[in-house]
């Protein structure tokens, strides 16, 4: 134990509090941790109280404001679990339903897809680009990958259907008259759409008139970027055509 003179007063108070509460064994950094928490908590409460006081057009902060600030904070951050009889009631209702029967031979037993984390967590952004001036104003959807918030656990079980296109690189002729499922997210979507929202899928029939070198551009620029670099179905293509998002 270092000499009391070197410990600031706040820390001494905190040590005393810990002793009063019966906490005898703790690491030295716990004091710092507690002090930081205390400072942050008190500052937050006082700031909140100040806001309430100005809202009530009072000149100075008084106890009512502080009480209100504390109460609001308690309801927000420091909640406690529901009371026991509420839980008992909920449990009673839940336990009344019989256990569901198990369907045989169903493969991996997982909840419906929207509750799983198995869908791809990226979406493809459509780009307006003048592909062929002669072909009129046909906007060819440009397939590039939207911003992906890097989540290492990209579940990659689902195979987005676009993949099928990429395997057809180098055979432009075969593109004729084939249907490709292309994911074109509506432009209003934010970049952080979560996986359960199904991106709009439309079938684009690639017109033979569009076939040209530019179309091959489309297919080859199917970039795959998933956050985890592992086990991905697509290869990394040119980075040039990335859109900065």
């Amino acid at each position, binding site marked *: 134990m270092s000499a009391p003179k070197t410990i600031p007063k706040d820390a001494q108070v905190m040590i005393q509090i810990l002793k009063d*509460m*019966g906490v005898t064994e703790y690491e030295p950094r716990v004091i710092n941790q507690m002090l930081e928490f205390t400072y942050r908590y008190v500052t937050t409460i006082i700031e909140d109280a100040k806001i309430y006081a100005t809202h009530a057009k009072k000149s100075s902060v008084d106890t009512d404001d502080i009480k209100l600030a504390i109460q609001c904070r*308690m309801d927000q951050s*420091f*909640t*406690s*679990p*529901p*009371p*026991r*009889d*509420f*839980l*008992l*009631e*909920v*449990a*009673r209702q*839940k*336990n009344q*339903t019989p*256990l*569901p*029967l*198990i369907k*045989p*031979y*169903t493969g*991996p*037993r*997982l*909840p*419906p897809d929207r*509750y*799983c*984390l*198995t869908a791809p967590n990226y979406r493809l952004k459509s780009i307006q680009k003048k592909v062929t001036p002669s072909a009129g104003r046909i906007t060819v959807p440009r397939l590039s990958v939207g911003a992906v918030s890097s989540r*290492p*656990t*990209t*579940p*990659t*079980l689902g*195979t987005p259907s676009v*993949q099928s296109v990429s*395997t057809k690189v180098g055979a432009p002729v075969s593109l004729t008259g084939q249907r490709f499922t292309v994911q074109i997210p509506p432009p209003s979507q934010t970049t952080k759409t979560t996986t359960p929202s199904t991106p709009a899928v439309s079938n684009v029939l690639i017109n033979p008139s569009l076939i040209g070198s530019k179309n091959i551009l489309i297919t080859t620029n199917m970039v795959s970027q998933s956050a985890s670099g*592992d*086990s*991905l*179905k697509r290869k990394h293509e040119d980075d040039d055509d990335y859109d900065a998002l």
Partner: protein
Amino acid sequence: MAAVQGGLVDTKDEVDVKTEPASDGFGNNTANDSRLLSAPPGSSTAVGNNKPAAGTPEEQQTLLAVLQFLKKNKLSESAEILRREAGLPEDALDLKGTDASGSGQGGAAGSVDTEGGNANALLSRVTVSASAGVQAPTKAVGEDQPDVSVVLSAYSQQGDPALYDVYYSSLKKFIESVLDCHRAELSQVFYPLFVHMYLELVYNNHESEAKAFYEKFSGDQECYYEDDLRVLSSLTKKEHMRGNETLLDFRTSKFVLRISRDSYQLLKRHLQERQNNQIWNIIQEHLYIDIFDGMPRSKSQIDAMSGSLAGEARREANKAKVYYGLLKEPEIELPLDDEDEEAENEEGKPKKKKPKKDNVGSKSKKQDPNAPSQTRIPLPELKDSDKLDKIMYMKEATKKIRLGPDLLPSICFYTFLNAYQGLTAVDFTDDSSLIAGGFADSTVRVWSVTPKKLRKVKTAADLNLIDKESDDVLERIMDEKTASESKILYGHSGPVYGISFSPDRNYLLSSSEDATIRLWSLQTFTCLVGYKGHNYPVWDTQFSPHGYYFVSGGHDRVARLWATDHYQPLRIFAGHLADITCTRFHPNSNYVATGSSDRTIRLWDVLTGNCVRIFTGHKGPIHAITFSPNGKFLASGATDGRVLLWDIGHGLMVGELKGHTDTIYSLRFSRDGEILASGSMDNTVRLWDAMKAFDDLETDDFTAATGHIHLQDNSQELLLGTYTSKSTPVVHLHFTRRNLLLAAGAYNP
């Protein structure tokens, strides 16, 4: 009584519980009506208080509040009757006659709100109180209606706060003067009484008296209540009480005491003689006295069973039938095998089935009367891969070493280095091929224990290219490029406190402080599902021995039963007073045991969600539970360093193993149940002789009926060995199929 907010109705059991103590105690085990009928005579002592106290504003408020509550819940008839009986004019906010026991406002009113839906009981209570002395309406209409919750949860003013001291001391003197045999039993009353009196003082804003009361009497309490008393000492104002869920539960639930009839008579007589028997009122209101006929218990017997937050368990709580037997193992034909040493049976010879290696107690042809039926709860059918697993299991089991006091298992310790105290959970697969560790940095790591490396499944594109008909297709689907010794799983956003492998080794579950439980696939090593339901840290989770179901328990004091293909829980097990620290399935998957910080263990029935057993006796939060392989017994370890053994069928404590000096974090029975291994924070693994501990149990009628046990102090003889590690607390124990003991812990220099 904050419960009032939702106006929710408790389960019938709770209702019964709450109304019973208000009777004069004789009819404790009988139904509601006895309470009401006996209330007037029983409260003859207190009824004197009624009339003079009738006109006090608080009681007027109470009546007002009750009336308002009735109206809010559309119980117009009851409201009418209340108004009529109490002699109120239309719309008058009136004074409800207090409960017959006069001071029992808190309790009775509390019972009122929980029985909000039960108009009859309410009615009868109204009539009773009306007969006990009704007051004229005095309060004007239109006053601000008191909030029901506030009023009904108030501890009523029982008497001069300065006199609490006197009451308590006089009770103390009385108990010290009784016969020895009764003294131990009556001393049980001290602790709950102390707590409730203190809380009353605090609630009614008598801070200084509360402090003085605490100072004077807290030292007298039993040592194992020390932690609770410390929490209590920090509560000095009414506002402090609001956020403390555990204390609210303590106030609203009845503290259960088991007292013999003779001792109880003594106490009752003494308390009813006195003028101001506030103590008697408190006892009626907050305590549940489970009376039994017979010899009073000795101090040691009482000490063994007490220690939990809510007293002991009532006898009825442990009377339900529990199917503790094991499910029948499915008959599996063993294929022709050339590498087995023993004479193996071939196909087509169903006779020489596999009862060779004991299928853990399954009576082969007959139905065990104590076993649940196969279809009691739906269980997944066995797939081919499961059948192969079972065959492997049986083969390994033939090579199992039979352990005993003279043949102790070897222990292999897996030490996690450089974990920097971040290792929070460990699990092994059943065949001991994989270890998983959950860490405080929110990662889960899986290691392969065998030389076989961990591989991921190939990508979909590559899977198209392989030959599906080949024999080794299961190896071909694995991607060699991803082979590694260990894999790290990211996904949680808080320390991972619980980990469990599925029996078929396909899935891994992890539960974390971020209130989710994640299911990971061990084929692709990615996260498949996040189960949200708890809103608070989840301290433990476990897969069922048959797969498909899993249970989780956490800070919100409930345990939930889930199935992997439902995003919401199937069952909610509510009843504990403090958070649930440990959850385990019974070997037959029909029951779940939960250990909690309220120092009790509860056994829940998966089919109905009811609590079928309550085991009290630990003096600290419980951190380890394990079932014996034959399903009959339960072992539990807590922070008090003791391992307690319980007989599930009878609901009794059958053994106590003392020896550890610090919290016990892991317990495991050997594969045949002969040895119990316990690992603790004191860096040791201890082996105990389980066969001997369960051997001579005296379960005569009296013991079974009253639940009194005579524990032998034979911990020393049962201890077979103590093995110390070099400053590594033992976090997990696992017996391999051949009865080798594996232990895991993080090195903590």
